[in-house]
Structure formats: structure tokens, C-alpha cells
């Protein structure tokens, strides 16, 4: 589709029309082809959709839409729906972000886009 010839030369720079001299070109040692970008992106989107489904089920599902149903059950001093809405939902959010960060690290590595080969100290 777009600029497959560019990946062959390993140059992903694009020229901005705002007249700035800066560019977004990758380091020469970080060559990533467009096809790799596309399949890497698919893997990323698949993972984050799975996590967002969980995010929705826990917060909007258990904490809001099903809260009255779940409130019929109690766990210690909590009604279950109330617990999800004021405590549990927040714990799950934290877990979801760390699962994403860890799983993405593996995916980055598998596709060779984890930046391990680039300079560590930036500028």
C-alpha cells in the first residue's frame, strides 16, 4: 500500500510540511520494515482489545450495569457489586496496565522493535 520501497532502503523518515528541519528518521541500526510494523501493530491491537474487554467488564459491567445483581451477594462486610465499584475495579485497573506493559515487552522483543540495539543514554 504505502511506500513499500522505503522499507527496502531502511529509511522511514518523512518530511514535514511545517518547514522544520527535524526529522523522525530511525537510527540506521533500527531498521524496521513496513510489513513488520503492520504485523507488530496487529499483535498490539489484539492484546489491547482483550485487556479493554476486561476493563469494561470489571468497571462498567460489575461496578455499574450489574451492580444491583451482584449486591445480592456479600463477601465479608461488602456487597459484591459495591466492592467492585469502590475497591475491586481499581485493583483490576492496576493489574491490567502491568499485564499490558509486561506482555508488550515480549511482543516488542519478538518483532525486534524493543530498541535494545539503540543507544541507551539518548541525548
Amino acid at each position, binding site marked *: 500500500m*504505502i*511506500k513499500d520501497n*522505503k522499507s527496502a532502503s531502511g529509511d*522511514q*523518515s*518523512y*518530511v*514535514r*510540511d*511545517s518547514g522544520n528541519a*527535524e526529522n*523522525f528518521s530511525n*537510527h540506521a541500526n*533500527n531498521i524496521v520494515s*513496513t510489513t513488520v*510494523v503492520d504485523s507488530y*501493530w496487529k499483535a*498490539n491491537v489484539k492484546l*489491547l482489545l482483550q*485487556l479493554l474487554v476486561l*476493563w469494561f467488564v470489571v*468497571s*462498567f459491567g460489575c*461496578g*455499574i*450495569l450489574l*451492580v444491583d445483581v451482584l*449486591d445480592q451477594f456479600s*463477601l*465479608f*462486610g*461488602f*456487597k459484591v457489586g*459495591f*466492592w467492585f*465499584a*469502590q*475497591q475491586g*475495579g*481499581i*485493583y483490576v*485497573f*492496576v493489574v*491490567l*496496565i*502491568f499485564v*499490558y*506493559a509486561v506482555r*508488550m*515487552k515480549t511482543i*516488542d522483543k519478538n518483532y525486534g*522493535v*524493543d*530498541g535494545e540495539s*539503540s*543507544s*541507551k*543514554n*539518548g*541525548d
Partner: protein
Amino acid sequence: MDVQTLTYIFIGLTFVFYLAIAVWSKAQSTRDFYVASGGVHPVINGMATAADWMSAASFISVAGIIAFMGRDGSVYLLGWTGGYVLLALLLAPYLRKFGQFTVPDFIGERYYSKVARVVAVICLIFISFTYIAGQMRGVGIVFSRFLGVDITIGVLIGMGIVFVYAVLGGMKGITYTQAAQYCILIFAYMVPAIFVSILVSGWAIPQIGLGAETTDGSGLYVLDRLDGILTDLGFNAYTDGVRSTIDVFAITAALMIGTAGLPHVIVRFFTVPKVSDARLSAGYALVFIAILYTTAPAVAVFSRLTFIESVHNRPYVETPSWFGKWEETGLLAWVDKNNDGAIQYAPGAALEGSSPVFVDGRGLSGQRRVGNVLSPNENEVYIDRDIMVLAHPEMAGLPNWVIALVAAGGLAAALSTAAGLLLVISTSVSHDLLKRTLMPGISDRKELLYARLAIAVALGLAAVFGIYPPAFVAQVVAFAFGLAAASLFPVILMGIFSKRMNKEGAIAGMLTGLVFTFSYIVYFKFVAPELNTPEHWFLGISPEGIGFIGALLNFIVATAVSSGTSSPPSSVQDLVNYIRTPTGAESGRMH
């Protein structure tokens, strides 16, 4: 030592600490000033993000709001934490890879349009100033209640401190100060919460105490006990909701999307070294935020319980000393409707009008006299929700140093958020308006000078807001989230996840979301406030939740318009590919 002296000592020490950090972390370049050179460790950035995000409102108001809303208060708990999932998965890593300084930077570049950039700047300034006004009110409350100084002087002292570390250090100074402020504010929040939890439930961890049995020997769970007391007094049970499900859904969604679209939060993720750090950092930020946000519902329950038990049916002359002290601030008032000399607490507002108007002289029991018309119900107590956090250490009879600590914590929360907001305002003026739009030729040094000037001007304006708080402050908080949700978030998201989205679509979408949300809120809050009831709302959604509909409209309009207009240039497709791959973020912007 008395509370006043201890408060002076605590606040004085924290101020010296902030100034020391400012001197140590002076900014040398625009990159230092705007994004701390992208060299901040993810954990430190997480702390700074948490302090940046948790404002005076989070520290002082959230537990109070929940204490009086019960289960409906969940909208704030889920709404103000769930947004971080969206941020970590959908925005932060890609914006970090983009590697520029501001949110309008991204919108301007991705949509190859100065118009888009300027629209984004306008949204950003509006959102941020709305927010700052609230912080200044928090500073004013802490100073007037705890130090007994005039609000004007209090605001000026607070502003002076922010001025030094924000103008000197820019993002670098602000980041390290915020990390320190996080430690102070969370300590100040947790210490009284733990004490009160032990008193009420016997558990040191408030999150567990909330679900435990009370220590009063009744064998009842804390929540069941509160439900029982409230229903006896004629209130709804604490764990039942009264708002409609669709409204709770919309408000939660608007707050989540709004959180993810807040410029001063997004820009924090520009400061970490790598894309993977941005993901991790969002996780750390949420851990630090969750500590406070899972404690708040416990504080809410404990303080409501303590409050009712210590005032209801008690003769005024026998109330603990905190009651009289808080009457002096005007946040608490009592009117003896049945002339029995005792305080009766019941549903409904005790007074007509939004707050008590005190008149000279004392009532028969020695209470401050109130000039308002009395409401025809049995409730005799006016109580401002903000008291619940500020006064619960006193209600529970905690030592003086805990009370002084809460004052220092409240100030840390207000100052850290104000500094973060001032920075995004000044950055968008010096960088987006001057450097990128009006005066493209200026040097790095000049830009840095303008950034410092802009922060000083913004600070001056914020101080004016603090000293002369506009009457509409409380009314417009819904604006900040509604507008962030309806304008910025959808355009940034589509800019990353769609290669087809073009400038026509983005501008049309932003304007639709902005105008719709703005008009809806203005209509119900200012034009026809008497119609602000569920039967008049669109689909039963309140102005607080309408940003969710605004965001949906933004998506729909942007998609429709872009499909009828030409594709973005190929350079933009390359930019999208560039931000989607994590490689090489450190070298993304070399001078």
C-alpha cells in the same frame, strides 16, 4: 505543642524542601524545561504523575463527596482511575515515541494543520485554567483554616513557592518536586486514615477495615452499621444508589475519557526515556493513585459514621471543640429549629440558599447565628463536604501532629497540580503559539525565556482566581473533563489508530465535540439551571456525563467527514508508522 505551631513547622519544612529541589534541578534548555530531557525514571515519573493528577480536590473533596453520595460516589472512583488504563494502552506509549513537547504538537503534526494546533491550544488553555481555579481555592481553605492567615496572603505565599520551582526548573524542577509532594500527601492522607480505621474497625489497613466488623461490640459490619444509622434517620442506605444507571455509566465514561485526555497528565509521559517506560510509568502512576483512591471510600464511611455519632441528638454545649472551630470557617453551621438545645441531623438541606449567611451575635446555646431562611425539614446541620477529610482527625480525637500533617498534605496536593497545569499552559503559549505559529524563527534561548515569562503571567492570573474566586468555579469542573473527553481524546486516539483520519475530519470532530458539550453544560448550568433535572436531560444524562456523548459525536463526525475528503499525505502515514513502533524513541528528537 499546639496545632497552629506544628502546622507552621510542617508547612515551613516542606516549603524549604521544595525550594532546595528547585535550586538543584534548574533547567538548562527548552528540552529540560518542557519534558525534563526525557530522562526521568518511570517510578519517579509515576509518583510525579500521581501528585500532578491528585489535586486539592482529590485530597480534600473526594472522600467527602463519597461520604454524602454513598454508592453513587463510585463514578468518581472508577472514573478517575479507569482513565489510566486508556492512557497506558491507547495514548501514552505512542505519544512518547512521537517525542515532541506538547499535546497540540501532536495534533498539529499529525493533522498537518495550524488550525488543528490552535484549536487544540484553545481547548488546553480552557481545561487547564478551569482546573487551576479549583487548586487555588484549596490553597485558600488550608491557609485560612489551619494557619489563620488571610486567604490573600495564603495564596500569595503558595504562588511564590510555585513561582520559584516552576520558573527555575520547568518540567525538571516540577517533576522532582511533585515526586516529593506525592510522598508528603500520601503520608498525610494515610496516617489519619489508618488511625481512624483502627478506631472504627480494629484493622490498620483502611481497605480491609471498610469490610470488617465495627469495634463497638454490636457485631455488625461497618457498612451495615452505617446503612442502619442512615435509614433510621430517614436517609437512603449508604450502599444503595439513587442515580439512574445510564447517568452513572455516562459520568464514569466521561471522567475516564476526560482523564486520558487531560493535557497535564498526558505530557508527563513525554518525560520518560523509552516507550516501554511510558507503559510501565502509567502503571506505577495508577498504583500510587490507587493507594489514595481505595482509601478514600473507607475514609468516607468512617468519617460519616464518626460525624453522625458525635453530633446527632447531642446538646450543642457538649459538642467536641472541633464543631465550634469549623463553625468559624463557615463550613459548618447549626440552627436550633425545635429549640431543644440539641443538634438534630436529618435528610435535606437545613437552610435555604447554597451556603449559610452568618449574622452578628450568638444563639442561645452560643452557636453562630445564621440569617438564612430555614428549610421546612428537621435537619439542623449545614455541613460542607470538604470538612470530612480536613476535620476527621479532629473528630476522631487524633494527636495534634496528625492534624498539622493533613494541612501540609492538602497544600502539597494543591501546589503540585497547580504547577503541572501552569507548565502546560506556558508551554502551549511559548511553544505552540509563539515558536510554532507566530514567531517560527526564535532561538532555543528566546523560547525558554518566553516559556518562563508565560509561566509567570499564568501564575499571576491563577493568583487572581485564588484571591477572587469566580462564583462559578464549582459549576465548571464538569467542563474540564467534558471538554477533554469530547475534544482532545478522540482526535489523539484516531491520530494513532487510524491512518485514514485527515485534517478535515479531525477539525470537524473536535469542533463538534467541543461545541456540543460546551452548549449542553452552559445551558443546564447557567442559562436554565431550573431545568437541570433528569426529566429534561438528553437521554437522562446529566451535564457531568455529557462529555461521553460529545466524544461519541466527535468520533462519528470525524469518521464521516474524513471518508468524504482526501486521504492525508503519505508523510503522515509514515509518521503514524513511526509512532507505532517503539524503536529508537531516545533518539527521536536530536538537535
